[in-house]
């Protein structure tokens, strides 16, 4: 087992704007190849946190380390390891996609053929090779979003920060963006992904921090979060035969917390259905029950957020 290497560590980040405390003691770590999600509604403090992590915003308190090196707003060298994809589009509309990439590449001390080749690679990754030499003010919203991400990736950062990169994007482009992000962690990049879309956090993130009102309310894998708030999977079997016998058989499966019959089938509450489903089906069929369909309802982060904050994610 390889040791966990943290690319980003931030501790007790605090930031107030006047009397409004936007971030109140946020801290987390992200390891190499890990995608960490900050999930919370608008105004939760996600962008303020990212701004402090990238050194854009002076923090009132707290520490940020990139690969063990402290980061402040005045840091120069440390910033080479960070790629930022801001929530608002940050591209020059009068330049082409290639010119945008080349310009930002130069700011990261890239030059010559290395820069040209890398720009071509990124254009390929974000699917803009065919339109690389068109001015970006002629692009669709989705294309601009993809370029916005491409610029963040250009210099192969150790840590990529994506601040709600799919806001206002059509479903097709959104899917393309999510696929791109999935590949990043495979390449060993540490990714901090902020979103208020539960589906994105569940799909992309190895770990998620639930943030609300400037505080991380809970943190962990999806399963850990679900368990943390005492929620379990619900499994329904449409079945025939001796259903009561099937229910009795499930008593020997420790993950099954509760089981019963209902509407010509069986229903049960299970801790991690994904892991125990095969055992459950074996026990039930062993008791003579005939199964016609299986339906697993896993609790999602939306319900976790609701449990933790008393509010829906999109409130």
């Amino acid at each position, binding site marked *: 087992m390889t040791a966990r290497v943290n690319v980003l560590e931030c501790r007790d980040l605090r930031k107030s704007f006047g009397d409004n405390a936007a971030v109140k003691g946020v801290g987390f770590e992200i390891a190499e190849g890990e995608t960490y999600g900050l999930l919370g509604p608008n105004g939760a403090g996600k962008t303020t946190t990212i701004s402090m992590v990238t*050194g854009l915003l002076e923090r009132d308190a707290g520490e940020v380390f990139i690969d063990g090196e402290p980061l402040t707003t005045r840091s120069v060298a440390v910033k080479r390891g*960070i790629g930022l994809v801001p929530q608002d589009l*940050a591209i020059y*509309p*009068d330049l082409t996609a290639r010119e945008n990439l080349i310009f930002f590449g*130069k700011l990261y*001390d890239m030059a010559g053929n290395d820069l040209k080749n890398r720009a071509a690679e990124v254009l390929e990754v974000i699917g803009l090779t065919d339109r690389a030499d068109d001015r970006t003010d002629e692009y669709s919203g989705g294309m601009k979003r993809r370029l916005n991400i491409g610029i963040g990736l250009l210099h192969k950062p150790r840590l990529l920060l994506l601040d709600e990169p799919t806001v206002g994007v059509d479903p097709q482009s959104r899917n393309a963006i999510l696929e791109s992000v999935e590949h990043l962690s495979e390449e060993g990049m540490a990714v901090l992904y902020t979103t208020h879309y539960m589906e994105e956090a569940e799909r992309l993130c190895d770990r998620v921090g639930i943030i609300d009102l400037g505080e991380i309310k809970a943190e962990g894998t999806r399963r850990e979060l679900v368990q943390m708030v005492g929620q379990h999977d619900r499994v329904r079997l449409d079945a025939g035969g001796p259903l009561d016998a099937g229910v009795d058989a499930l008593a020997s499966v420790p993950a099954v917390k509760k089981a019963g019959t209902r509407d010509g089938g069986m229903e049960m509450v299970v801790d991690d259905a994904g892991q125990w489903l095969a055992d459950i089906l074996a026990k039930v069929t062993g008791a003579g029950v005939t199964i016609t369909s299986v339906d697993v309802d896993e609790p999602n982060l939306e319900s976790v957020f609701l449990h933790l904050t008393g509010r829906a994610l999109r409130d």
Partner: protein
Amino acid sequence: MRQAWHIASKDLKLRFRDRSAFIIGVIAPLGLAAIFSSIFNPIEEFQFVATYAVVDLDGGFVATQFVAGLEQFGAASEDVKIVKAASREEAIALADVEPFSSEEGVDAAFVLPPGFSDAVQSDNPVALEVISGQAGVGAGLAIAFAEQFASEMTYARIAVAGFESLGGTDDRGAAGLRALATPSPVSVESVETSDKELAGKTFYAAGLAIFFLFFTVQFGVNSLLEERHAGTLSRLMAAPMRRSSIIAGKAIMSFVLGFVSMVVLVVATTLLFGAEWGNPIGVFLLVVAGIISALGIMAVVAGFAKTAEQAQNYSSMVAVILGFLGGTFFPVGQAGGILSDLRFVTPHAWFMQGLGDLGAGNVGDVLPAVGALLLFGLVAGTIGLVGLRKGLQS
């Protein structure tokens, strides 16, 4: 610092691509200079030519002296022609004809009536008629010539009267001639100052160049606020460079735009309109100092504006007010009073003053103006830098 050059290079590309810098920095001032030049060139190139008629109906001593003096004036200048007319009616007819439209016409006619000489010599009043068909420089000069003659006659009469009261025994004519031959106790000299205002086309070329320089320079300074509005500022600030590099990039871009614009204008107005800017080294010093002063003042405006639109509005107001006050459209220095002194609170006035001094003297004469312009740049630039840095931190 390398990043600052990259930022400046990118901004220049954007400005040349949208042509805004070209229009504000070159086309507008060149166009206005052409308009002003076309208005003022005919006045500068105007050459005085006049024809006068004279009718001597008297034939006496004084009248003969007047005609002789007039002919002497005509002989001394190729541009003044004297013709004789036989009668007052002929003189009126000649004066009624537009002299520019016909060689037959005259600008004015002098009529010396019968008994003119006797009247002058006997202290009786008499009229020397000046007939002109149209107002103009030629007619005005004729009246001035006649008035000068009348003044001299009055002077001679006073001298003769004084001579007689002291018991003089010579005849009045000889006494009068002696009085006229006596040199005037007061002489008038024309002296050109070394502290000269620019003239004509050079004035307008220089005035419009420095006026539009402020608009050109504001592109770079205000683009910092545009970067914020466009969202690209966050990317620049997240890049591995000092924030001062971002400001330096904008300053470099402003300087280059301003310099290119000024060089184009200096060369173009010299070749096309005949503007005389003076010694190139002195002009270079003034241009560089002028750009620095404009950069400082525009940085103050941008440093305290909240949006790019606000900065653009403020910049335009400041540029127009300083331009007018500094005398880029009309020579405020000649207005006298408080305006004449107040103009020196603007870089424009120092720039114009520097060019005026350069035209009248040598390169060293521009140093006070260059110093004043650099001081403007230093003071305003320091204040502006504080505002811009504060803006980057918020």
